[in-house]
């Protein structure tokens, strides 16, 4: 029950959000944050069960045939993640109330945020992998809506679109991977899934799942969408694009560790991707000047560390990953909020324009310093423990990994200094004069969350016993002992070096920025690839859908003939030559008449001869019916032919001149005509060469008089045996009559305005 409520509360609050905001005004964000806090408390209540190893579960049928079951399982790692989500969620809701103030979009923003929260909790506690996917996609969509909050601004729209496309492409890959995995495993529940590394398609599933995780967690080469997503209001960035959503990829990989971790490709794939991402971050940070961009790059870097740690996959690295995840949420969330407060106060996030805010905004700055220290990894902050263990695990795997993490830690120092020191203590700028401290609703969350980094850092025992230990255990890995102080060892040395060199880099930041090469713009490359594909599609469509009715008909006929002839050859359908020999001489003569008239029709250069030849062709068909002893059919055909000749003669009077096609087109048309003729001959001969059963017409003949009470069999068939067809055809005639009425009106209009349209060969403007 508690577990369902953790999802239901945010969803319900989200549904009423726009209305509640209108009714409650400034109280609404407080209500929303209270909702998040309730979820947090409920999760805490479920924690003991999870730690003791019998987590709460929910199972409801949804679409069991395809594996989708509403199955939730609140194990320790899931609760760990959900606690972060709801805890930070509380802070964000409260902060958003102050940050957005009287902005009329507050209702919808908080609504989407709450919906996102529900989706993200769903990702955390889902046991069924497709249920996880359902939640996963909802996070992508809500993220899109939130990034586009300022949708009147074009860059916001572009950022939202790219974030959606990248994460959705990853999502589609993930879906493929999960379906393969689930079908192979025979179960769709994570908790029941065995180690799958020796299954035949495990590697394929792994690659697809990695695509999903890397796009979501902004790993190389999909990192570029995250800086673009910074167009969102700061509370959104703090929540989705640093503390929670981007960790979904990391979370998924951690969940997959016990299933696919034994694959030979697991470690190299994750570690190399992480390393590439780290290098990207290291190169990008020195040139960045926007507070949020700086923080976004460091987030990408932190995610890369976590991905790498999962890739290494030892007890120590998995423990380090969990600690890092928590530490990062505790410092990156507040840092974003600090950046938001600064932006809120002075309306700028450019470090070249900020400075001297320490006196004006003391609480904000102190919070920032605490969070920054954790990010830099100074004892006794939680960030320090995280970095120590990450370095240690990296060291055990390969020295170069530890080295890379050290350089990345340097970049973090640079980021922290840029984000906190420059605005706080830098040269006082003009902007600072009207700065003001943020309101309480914004200060409290910042202070609480960032001080958690300090509290948890000084109590590693608590952390190990109730939070990190159980979480790691539920990933089927043995947690290693946590402590703040390990004595003098190599990780500590590296850590110290990183701080020192990072400080140096900050001092020489201008030179460093000039030294670092400008990176190719990820969004631009993505756009080029994407637009290239769309352009390719447009060209293909221009060729296919080019507006020419002649070409449409030609394509259809040629493709049909080619298909038929190929199947004829493949199936080796027999042709009985005797059939041809049995054709009576009169039929051959009539066929010759028809053929000659057809050729004459095609070659005619004036209208009247063409119509006359067409009429002759029809008469040939009439003769054929006569020869086959079907006088009633012949009579009907005769009337139809006369009528069509008359109507054609009248009709052509109103149409534009006869156009003689160019020679080269004529050759093509002759070829098509020959192809069709040949194919139809083959089809007819094949049909005549085989008989499967006696036709039912014998029954019709036998029963026309006795049961249908008519001497004319054709008549009885038309009006009785198959009277329903005739009934349908009568309706067709009725519709035609109705249509003529409509058409006569519209054709008169048309002829006046645009006679060209009637030829059917106008261009459809393909845009």
């Amino acid at each position: 029950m508690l577990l369902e409520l953790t999802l239901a509360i945010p969803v319900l609050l989200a549904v009423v959000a726009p209305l509640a905001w209108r009714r409650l005004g400034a109280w609404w964000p407080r209500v929303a944050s209270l909702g998040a806090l309730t979820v947090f408390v409920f999760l805490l209540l479920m924690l003991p069960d999870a730690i003791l190893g019998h987590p709460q579960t929910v199972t409801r049928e949804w679409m069991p045939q395809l594996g989708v079951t509403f199955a939730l399982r609140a194990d320790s790692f899931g609760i760990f993640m959900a606690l972060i989500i709801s805890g930070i969620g509380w802070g964000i809701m409260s902060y958003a109330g102050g940050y957005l103030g009287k902005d009329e979009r507050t209702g919808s923003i908080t609504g989407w945020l709450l919906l996102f929260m529900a989706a993200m909790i769903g990702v955390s506690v889902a046991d069924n992998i497709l249920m996880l996917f359902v939640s996963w996609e909802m996070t992508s969509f809500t993220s899109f809506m939130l990034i586009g909050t300022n949708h009147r601004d074009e860059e916001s729209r572009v950022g939202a679109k790219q974030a959606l496309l990248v994460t959705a492409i990853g999502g589609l890959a993930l879906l493929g991977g999960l379906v393969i995995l689930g079908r192979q495993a025979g179960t769709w529940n994570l908790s029941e899934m065995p180690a799958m590394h020796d299954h035949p398609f495990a590697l394929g599933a792994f690659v697809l799942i990695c695509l999903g995780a890397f796009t979501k967690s902004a790993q190389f080469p999909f990192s570029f969408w995250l800086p673009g997503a910074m167009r969102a209001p700061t509370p959104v960035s703090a929540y989705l694009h640093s503390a929670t959503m981007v960790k979904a990829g990391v979370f998924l990989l951690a969940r997959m560790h016990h299933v696919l971790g034994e694959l030979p490709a697991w470690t190299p794939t994750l570690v190399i991707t992480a390393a590439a991402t780290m290098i990207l971050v290291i190169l990008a940070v020195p040139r960045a000047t926007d507070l949020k961009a700086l923080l976004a790059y460091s987030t990408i870097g932190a995610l890369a560390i976590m991905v790498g740690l999962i890739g290494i996959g030892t007890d120590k690295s998995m423990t380090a990953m969990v600690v890092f995840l928590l530490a990062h949420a505790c410092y990156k969330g507040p840092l974003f909020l600090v950046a938001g407060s600064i932006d809120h106060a002075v309306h700028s996030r450019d470090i070249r324009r900020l400075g001297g805010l320490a006196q004006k905004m003391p609480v904000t700055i102190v919070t920032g310093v605490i969070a920054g220290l954790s990010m830099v990894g100074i004892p006794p902050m939680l960030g320090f423990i995280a970095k120590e263990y990450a370095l240690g695990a990296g060291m055990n795997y390969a020295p170069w990994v530890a080295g890379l993490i050290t350089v990345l830690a340097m970049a973090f120092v640079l980021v922290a200094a840029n984000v906190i020191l420059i605005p706080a203590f830098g040269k006082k700028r003009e902007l600072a004069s009207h700065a003001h401290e943020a309101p309480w609703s914004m200060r409290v969350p910042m202070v609480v969350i960032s001080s958690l980094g300090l509290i948890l850092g000084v109590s590693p025992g608590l952390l190990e016993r109730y939070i990190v230990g159980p979480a790691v255990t539920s990933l089927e890995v043995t947690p290693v002992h946590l402590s703040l102080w390990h004595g003098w060892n190599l990780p500590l040395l590296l850590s110290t070096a990183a701080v020192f060199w990072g400080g140096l880099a900050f001092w020489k930041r201008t030179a460093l920025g000039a030294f670092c090469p400008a990176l190719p713009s990820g969004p631009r490359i993505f756009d080029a690839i994407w637009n290239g594909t769309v352009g390719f599609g447009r060209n293909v469509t221009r060729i296919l859908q080019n507006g020419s009715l002649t070409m449409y008909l030609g394509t259809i006929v040629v493709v049909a003939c080619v298909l038929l002839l190929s199947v004829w050859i493949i199936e080796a359908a027999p042709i009985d030559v005797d059939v041809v020999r049995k054709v009576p001489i009169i039929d051959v003569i009539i066929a010759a008449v028809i053929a000659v008239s057809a050729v004459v029709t095609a070659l005619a250069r004036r209208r009247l001869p063409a119509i006359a030849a067409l009429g002759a062709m029809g008469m040939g068909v009439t003769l054929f019916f006569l020869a086959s002893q079907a006088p009633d059919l012949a009579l009907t055909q005769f009337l139809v032919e006369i009528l069509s000749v008359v109507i054609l003669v009248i009709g052509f009077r109103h149409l534009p001149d006869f156009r003689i096609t160019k020679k080269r087109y004529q050759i093509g048309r002759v070829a098509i005509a020959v192809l069709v003729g040949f194919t139809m001959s083959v089809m007819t001969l094949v049909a005549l060469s085989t008989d499967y059963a006696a036709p039912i017409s014998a029954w019709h003949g036998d029963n026309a008089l006795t049961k249908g009470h008519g001497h004319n069999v054709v008549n009885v068939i038309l009006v009785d045996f198959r009277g329903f067809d005739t009934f349908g055809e009568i309706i067709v005639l009725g519709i035609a009559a109705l249509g003529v009425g409509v058409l006569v009106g519209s054709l008169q209009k048309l002829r006046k305005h645009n006679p060209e349209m009637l030829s059917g060969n106008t261009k459809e403007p393909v845009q």
Partner: protein
Amino acid sequence: MNGLVAAPMLVPLVTAAVCTLLRRMAVLQRGFSLVGSAVEIGVALLLLVEVNSSDYLVSNMGNWQAPFGITLVIDRLAAVMVLLTALTGAASAWYSWISLPKSALSPAFHPLLHFLLMGVSGAFITGDLFNLYVCFEIMLLSSFVMLVLEGKAEQTEGAVKYVVLNLMSSTIFLTALGLLYAKAGTLNMADISILAQEAVAEHRAGPLRLGGLLFMVAFAIKAGMFPFFFWLPASYHTPSVPVSALFAGLLTKVGVFALIRLHTLIMPNDVLGHEILLVLGVATMITGVLGAAGQMGIRRILSFHIISQVGYMVVGIAIGTPLALAACVFYLCHHIVVKSNLFLVGGIAADCAGSEDLRKTGGMWLAWPLLGLLYLVPALSLSGIPPFSGFFAKLGIVSAGVERELWWVVAAALATGAFTLYSMFKIWIEAFWKDHPSSGFRLAPEQRSFVRLWPMLALAAITIAIGLMSGPLFHFCEEAALQLLNPNGYIHAVLGGRL
């Protein structure tokens, strides 16, 4: 209950006839049209319940025993298709009542609408191939007239292409019928199925297969498959909104339905035919979605997406396993509702924003958030975003592909999903998020009337319900698929005595 079998054709016929008589009394005509739609839905629901318990409903027209007369047969698939036809028709009639100014609507609209429904329903329930042809004729002629109702130049241009290419389909269909009759001497689908099964057993099915392929081409044109779809993008964006919503929901689906019948009943076990269908289906998915990506008109984008989605369904038929067919049936149900709804919502958005060209639209999210939400439901569903119906439909096709290890099909289906998402959100970004290009853009209160949204609300509710109740619904689709894969059940129901 078997007396009701012809009702899906007769009720629309009566409605159409009465609406024709009432053509000078607009209000009465609309009212009667809606009543007729409601009765159609009721009848369809009755039939669905009935078929769920008794598997097949069979009725011989004129009481001439099969295969000598014409037989109407309703199985699970036919029943659900009839229901969806009635729903789409009702939504279209409803929309035309509340959202089009009286002058914009030709008095011939309502009669033609019901004639069309008659043809479509007839195509679903007939058990006779020639009668299917007759139903196609009814559909073709009524839809052709509906295309040109307003007599605009572009409508006539589109209609010429529409009618010529569809007549090509009719011609091919008729040729195939002639050849088949020459070989098999019967037109009753069940009867042909017996012959086909015997021929396969005796390894002399080659000539029948050739005939089957000719049918396939005819139906593929109707279904809008690659490379036969030209008539669709040429015409669907031209008529008034309720007409194109109706077409978008139903017309191609008749082709898909005929392909299902062809490959499960008329020519079962046709391995080569399945392979051709699979390749063409994948090509349809891809060309459709590529066509959509480059368009800038709302209905042009949506039209190309019909093609792409037909590809998914055809792939389901071609894979042909119980899972794949069930997924195909599920896809059909989901798609009819979603696609009609998108055309309706798109129509309102275009009407409010003053243009269908995305470059000239904008500002709708701020101007009318509710309309935005109503767009998002079918758009997300079509893009396959959970928990909406389209996700489960896509999941079905992907699972079926994975089951058979057809990796290239799975890859194509997933990649198509990405582009579908792209164009759905292109409409969202351009028509809803972006500012309207004219600065003085404001909605008139009568444009923004809540009443206009009712049909879309109803369809959106159905979409959400399909998503939430996908389990039981998919169960129904599985049963329908099993029924399709067991042609002997159908044969027995039709020709019971003779078998």
